[in-house]
């Protein structure tokens, strides 16, 4: 009745080359639709920011759209969009990416644009000041002017981790953002945006030999620079409960988040995959353990979710990371009742294990979601690029559904034993302002 045993491996060929300047290149051709995706991943993210420069990786991502040696301001967008393409960029904990999805005939134009800003982005005082203002508006939209805006992604790491790399606000304080200078941006670019610190991943409707020629033409001349060592962001596992309370004057109802340290996503991938499926088993859909217990049976919660990785993608992070369980509950329900029920459900998995039938259902659902992401040329290309940068193997992205399907009930039980109530970070959000 289930898909276990079905072949869930994505068989896209992956070709790899590297240029003399150190740029790693991954090509993932698939000519079924006339769309191509061009993605560039730089090995620098929020965790690389120095003290006093919180939010700088994200601010610099914005600066990368301000033009480059041969591209005036606004023209990056115009050249992509007037070709019928879309573009964006995003800053993650361990990397920053830039991408375009375009009709296949615009491939070379996208390569030109990415190579031009890899060589020389337009880092000017005017552009920097403008984008500091834009980033402050982004933070107001997503954090300051809405209820639950920082919850829990900016607040939970502060108690879940110890090091500055893992605890600081990756969106940035206004003080740090406003005091950023052109010299900071130039240094940051010089240090982290070297071609040898980047992966170029191109997927979709492309001819491998011709694309390789175009890549060499446009990226070959970008000057090589020293590549910084990958920083160590792992931490010793916590041995105690850490608990804190935040107040949200815009929120109409309380919430609580629990975070547990999980195995190293890269160094211990097999064990980590058990944790990824545990999160699905706990929280994905009406059949999940916590949805049934908290929402339907005990009626303690309005909504619940569990996920691995700060932004919910378990495969785009290095160590250290968390499994987070987040619960929105009515004010009339004491938070300790919620916590007790969560620990009890995880304890049941840890003590009794899970049946092969239940796990097979969870695997079928998780596999379908991975395949769905891979159905879009851009989604697939981003997954290949992230796997190459984080795991050193683009092919892993195509194998993940099959790898998850091979996880055993014992691995999920072991993962649940790792979610010890005695080592959780617990963050309560109290609604202090009422509806407004």
């Amino acid at each position, binding site marked *: 009745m289930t898909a276990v045993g079905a072949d869930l491996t994505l068989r896209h060929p992956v070709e790899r080359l590297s240029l003399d300047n150190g740029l790693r290149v991954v090509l993932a051709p698939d000519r*079924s639709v006339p769309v191509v995706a061009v993605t560039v991943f730089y090995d620098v993210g929020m965790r690389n920011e120095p003290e006093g420069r919180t939010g700088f990786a994200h601010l610099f991502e914005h600066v990368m759209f301000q033009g480059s040696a041969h591209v005036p301001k606004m023209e990056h967008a115009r050249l992509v969009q007037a070709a019928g393409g879309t573009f964006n960029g995003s800053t993650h904990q361990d990397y920053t990416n830039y991408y375009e999805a375009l009709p296949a005939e615009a491939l070379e134009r996208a390569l030109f644009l990415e190579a031009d800003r890899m060589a020389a982005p337009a880092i000017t005082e005017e552009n920097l000041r403008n984008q500091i203002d834009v980033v402050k508006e982004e933070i107001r*939209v997503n954090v300051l002017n809405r209820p639950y805006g920082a919850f829990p992604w900016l607040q939970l790491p502060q108690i879940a981790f110890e090091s500055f790399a893992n605890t600081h606000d990756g969106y940035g304080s206004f003080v740090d953002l406003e005091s950023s200078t052109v010299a900071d941006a130039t240094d940051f670019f010089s240090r982290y945006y070297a071609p040898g610190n980047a992966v170029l991943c191109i997927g979709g409707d492309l001819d491998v030999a011709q694309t390789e020629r175009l890549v060499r033409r446009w990226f070959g001349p970008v000057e090589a620079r020293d590549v910084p060592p990958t920083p160590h962001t792992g931490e010793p596992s916590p041995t105690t409960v850490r608990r804190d309370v935040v107040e949200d004057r815009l929120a109409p*109802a309380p919430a609580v988040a629990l975070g547990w340290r999980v195995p190293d996503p890269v160094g211990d991938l097999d064990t980590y995959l058990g944790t990824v499926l545990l999160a699905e088993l706990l929280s994905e859909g009406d059949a999940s353990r916590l949805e049934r217990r908290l929402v339907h049976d005990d009626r303690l919660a309005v*909504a619940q979710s569990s996920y691995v990785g700060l932004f919910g993608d378990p495969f785009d992070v290095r160590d250290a990371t968390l499994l987070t369980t987040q619960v929105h509950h009515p004010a009339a329900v004491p938070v300790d009742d919620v916590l007790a029920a969560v620990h009890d459900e995880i304890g049941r998995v840890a003590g009794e294990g899970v049946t092969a039938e239940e796990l097979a259902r969870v695997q079928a659902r998780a596999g379908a979601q991975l395949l769905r992401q891979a159905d879009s040329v851009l989604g697939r290309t981003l997954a290949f690029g992230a796997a190459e940068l984080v795991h050193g193997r683009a092919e892993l992205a195509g194998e993940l559904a099959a790898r998850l399907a091979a996880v055993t009930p014992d691995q999920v039980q072991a993962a649940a034993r790792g979610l010890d109530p005695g080592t959780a970070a617990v963050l309560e959000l109290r609604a202090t302002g009422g509806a407004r």
Partner: protein
Amino acid sequence: MSAPVLDLDLIPPLGEPRPQPVPEVATTTLPSGLDVVVVPRPGVPLVELRLRVPFAAGTPRGAAQHTARASVLSGAVLLGTAQHDATGIAQALQGHGAELTVAADPDRLLFSTTLLAEGLAPVLGVLAEVLTAAAYPADRVEAERDRVAERIAIARSQPGVIARSALAARRYGAHPYAAQLPAPELVGKVGAAALRRLHRERVLPAGSTLVLVGDLDAAAATDAVAAALGEWTGEGTAVGAPPAPTLAPGHLEVVDRPGAVQSNIRLGGPAPGRTDPDLPAVRLAGMVFGGYFSSRLVENIRERRGYSYSPRSAVDHLAAASSFLVEADVATEVTGPAFLETWAELGRMALAPVTEAELDAARRYVLGSMALSTATHAGLASTLSALAGSGLSAEWLAEHQRALAEVTVDQVQEAARRYLAPAALTGVVVGDAERVTDALRALGPVDVTASAAADPA
């Protein structure tokens, strides 16, 4: 470094476009009146399912209660059937990679899921069970209704929701489209018996459309639907929304949200519907104004002045009304200047021609993004389901693309004059009234109201 100048000789030219694959769409109407649309597509071994059931309020007077009931029904329909409880339903789907979600809006109920291709027949079986034998167990319905009321309270604390609700109330008056979110007190009165009756009377195959896109065979999939959903019958046919009024724009409304660090500017007015020959020109005018990053609004209030992170405009279609909408979230201290610039860019659109280059760029972007958004199983399924809601088929996509290709600068200006002129738009600003109203009054009359979300849920 000095500011670069664009040297067009340096920019790699675009190659020859490759033809877009044209989807082969098989459409059948079952004896029950259900339309079945099946599209085989290469790609991942998945199928995307969308069942659209028209579900508009029958009358304006009954709209508030209908909206409240629909908001509970969309969760409660999955709480159990004659044969299975909620967990049993979810487990039967999960084993095939599926998770059914049901969403209500002013026009329809939409049942959606992804599924592994091998699971089509069993997933259709579960869908049939939900459609024909949803039990609405009383105690579970009561719990669901309480959760819905809590979720509405949370939604109404979001400034974007407050702004959208205020604009809809201004634009639609007594029409059902005015109520974006149901009133919590009406939600609190929804009972199981009312839901069973609503389901019996309104969850009907006649007028509904089931779309399946993905790794499947058209004939076999259509047979599977006929076999699984043969028992889903019912008296009557679907009800659409009554025609929506076009109300005069009136004064700018400031919805007070004391202490807000940002103001949410929203402007909206009528736009041509999907079959109106004016639509292609209005879409392109909207793109040039604020429809994408390369637009005038983004260049002005984001990239030049840093007032806003994501200013935007869009044409939005409901079954009985289409809209041109403008949105910008701006810092409290620049609310007046940001509103002025937005207003001025709309005025420029209405009074001065766009350039050929602006029109060509917008056209290529719209055509390209239509191709991208229908290049996945999920994107194509959602697009076809939305078109079905307007009584249109996949052919509309090709017709619309041809029409977009022919729009001229003159037509764009004519369209902008009629639909983008600031005087044609209703305006709402959600923000700290004490700090923003004086500046806005410099531009025209302003009415200040208390936040709709201020009453305790």
